[in-house]
């Protein structure tokens, strides 16, 4: 009788309250984002170029592709991309980089980024796939400068675009975007203009800030946003992060020349007459500098050695000591300064032109600053440290899928606040970082 009563009370309680806690989950919504025809315009990062080549994994995990996947969580969204193969290809004909073992000139084997294949996939470039596969929602084109977006027949000068253009003779990226009657667009331009020069120029020459379409950054961007917003579509544009924080520029220290007493003596015999001296231990590398006597000087603090420098030459062939490092692997203080100034100018232009056309600006600079100072996301530490930092791909310039997902979330955060939307964020943990053998 008593136990019966207890039993009944227990049953009632269990019925009233189920054992599992419940959450009210807010309904997802695209708000005023119309994802029917989402078009993304940008350079390498938009195309999904990563690990030193355009490759399938990078494309499938480009921020633009991830944004479209999150749209798709709310309402079915098609996002067509000009997909390539796993090993991919870059303009030097190389495949993508993966983590592997490399034996250096000293015979030491270590874990290092290596090319996945002896050569890139040569079937990718050289033919056009528009008929049959196009049009493409992702109009990101590796190495694309802002000044080239409206250029007719741009396929002639960029093989990646040649592959996907709607018209080999007259096609332009903007034209191909407009052909799709975009209902929503994202633009990430300017970063590539700076990178094109900063990552390979012997002397850094950056596109002008001001000038008409095809000549200056502001005129070109104005033409692009004018045309895109003229369709009535909503859109967003990203600002430009401070690219010199990327691992490509920060991994090799300016004073990475470590020498013993014998090496110091030898170097001093060679260089003392030129007014350059070395000490045992760490020394700044020697670099080519036409403005210095004898075209050589030591690096000074703040100057950057690019990740593209041939490390075997540095380790075994005296590059950076007996032989000065060629200018194309170095950013001098002057060059760094001009890059900084140009980024600020471009960002100011982006802010102004975006506001002219009612396009909202995504603060990517903020996200990258977080990487630079080190940020923790759900127990994962992300930084600009090469390889171990976990956000950048193995080329040290473009992000890996995890980093791309965080860029996508930055876009989504802005869309949610600007377009009255509730688009779920991508889960960066589900996107891979660096893969280790």
């Amino acid at each position, binding site marked *: 009788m008593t136990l019966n009563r207890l039993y009944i009370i227990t049953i009632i309680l269990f019925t009233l309250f189920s054992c*599992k*806690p419940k*959450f009210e*989950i807010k309904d997802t919504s695209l708000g005023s984002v119309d994802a029917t025809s989402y078009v993304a315009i940008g350079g390498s990062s938009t195309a999904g170029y990563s690990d030193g080549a355009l490759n399938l994994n990078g494309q499938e995990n480009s921020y633009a592709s991830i944004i479209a996947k999150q749209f798709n969580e709310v309402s079915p969204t098609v996002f067509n991309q000009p997909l390539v193969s796993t090993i991919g290809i870059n303009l030097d004909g190389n495949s993508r980089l993966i983590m592997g073992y490399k034996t250096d000139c000293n015979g030491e084997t270590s874990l290092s980024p290596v090319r996945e294949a002896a050569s890139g996939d040569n079937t990718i470039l050289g033919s056009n796939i528009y008929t049959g596969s196009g049009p493409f929602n992702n109009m990101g084109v590796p190495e694309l400068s802002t000044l080239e977006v409206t250029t007719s027949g741009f396929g002639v000068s960029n093989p990646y675009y040649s592959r996907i253009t709607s018209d080999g003779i007259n096609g332009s990226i903007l034209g191909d975007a407009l052909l799709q009657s975009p209902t929503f667009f994202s633009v990430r331009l300017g970063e590539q203009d700076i990178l094109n020069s900063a990552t390979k120029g012997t002397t850094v020459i950056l596109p002008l800030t001001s000038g008409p379409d095809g000549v200056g950054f502001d005129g070109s961007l104005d033409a692009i946003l004018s045309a895109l917003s003229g369709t009535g579509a909503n859109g967003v544009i990203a600002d430009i992060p401070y690219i010199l924080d990327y691992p490509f520029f920060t991994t090799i220290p300016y004073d990475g020349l470590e020498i013993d007493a014998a090496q110091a003596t030898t170097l001093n015999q060679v260089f003392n007459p030129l007014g350059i001296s070395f000490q045992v231990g760490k020394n700044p590398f020697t670099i080519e500098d036409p403005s210095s006597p004898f075209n050589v000087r030591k690096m000074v603090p703040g100057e950057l050695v690019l990740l593209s420098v041939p490390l075997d030459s540095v380790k075994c062939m005296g590059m950076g000591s007996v032989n000065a490092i060629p200018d194309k692997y170095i950013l001098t203080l002057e060059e760094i300064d001009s890059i900084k100034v140009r980024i600020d100018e471009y960002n100011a232009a982006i802010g102004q032109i975006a506001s002219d056309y009612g396009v909202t600006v995504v603060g990517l600079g903020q996200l990258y600053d977080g990487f630079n100072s080190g940020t923790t996301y*759900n127990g994962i530490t992300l930084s600009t440290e090469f390889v171990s930092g976990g956000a950048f791909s193995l080329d040290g310039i473009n992000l890996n899928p995890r980093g791309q997902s965080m860029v996508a979330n930055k876009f989504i955060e802005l869309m949610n606040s600007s377009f009255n939307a509730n688009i779920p964020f991508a889960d960066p*943990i589900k996107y891979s970082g660096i893969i*280790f053998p």
Partner: protein
Amino acid sequence: MQKLFLLLLVFPFQIFSQGYQVNLQGQVSQGMGGAGSALMQDASSLFFNPGGSSFVHSNEISLNVTPTFGNTAFLENNTNNLARTTSPVGTPFSLYALYQVKDSSKLKLGLAVYTPFGSTVEWEDEWVGRFALTRLKLLSIFVQPTISYRLTDKIGIGAGFVYSYGKVNLQKDIPVQSTDGEYGTAELDGSGSGFGFNVGLFFDLTKHVDFSITYRSKVEMNVKMGDATFIVPNSLEEKFPSGKFTSSLPLPAVFTFGLAIKPNEKLSIALDANYTDWTPYDTLAFDYENNTESLEDTKSARKYVGSVALRLGAQYRITEKIKARAGFAYANSPVQNNYVTPETPDANRFNFTLGLGYKLSDNFIIDASLLFTQFTREATNLETGLSGTYKTRVYSPGIQLTYKF
């Protein structure tokens, strides 16, 4: 005793109550919101107030077990990512034996074996907080031989020596991925022991009012030579060497003031206030035997603060054989907002309890209780950045068998 150890190891208990403290020690008290340290009725006074044990009027052995069904769900901020725990049913238990020494009605000897701290939390696979925690199993068992002495007709004093043995197993994922896309894992497994004491004073103030003060000391559980096992991609094995580790976990001191009021023969009201000094749990540190650039010793801030619980309960004797009980408790959380972790997604809370006692015969009593609590905590953890809302719901039906002789 060996058997009991085995039992404990087989049946872990679910996270419960403040921090990793488990307040399920006797069904009479539990039916009354956990109050009753001044309401001396049975052998569980060995835990609640050793000073009052000398006032219990019989020799007793009681065994009680409280299966605990707890579920926590976590909703990550700004997402629809909902993750749930898949923790097993916990079974905190206790055994109390109280014996009156012949020829001295004032002296009682007792042995208490109980599980005052512990938690088993297991999160579903691939949940968003996997790099903070995937599974934690914390077990402790206290063995407490006790002496209780009635100084006068009004005052009892008691003291117990506590030996504590515990085990900990912590698992989480490491954010390094191999070519198959799998993340690395870390497992820390160890055991430790510690010592402490439990003392109490009991005052039979008037016919209607009793009062008690108790203090259970801190027990520092030191884990030495635990096993740290890391599973990572081959190329990183040198950076994450498996090996030994050392750590320690404080099981905090508890002060309790208890008041019992008996307006008439049938009704008893109990009011308890606990202060748990969690401040020693400032840092959770792991010292690894083999350090590398990737595997450094860790010090994670916990920064627990002292917490207070207020408990109110009542018992009514319906018939000679049946007693009904009800109670509730309010407890504030020792965990500060920036330090909430998936191992103890703690929050301020109300507990609601019901209980029944049934006298089977002059020798046997059976008691049962049911506890329900639900609590919600929204927090962003400073160390991991994990940000969201934890919602926990707990049911604890318990049963106790007492034999008097």
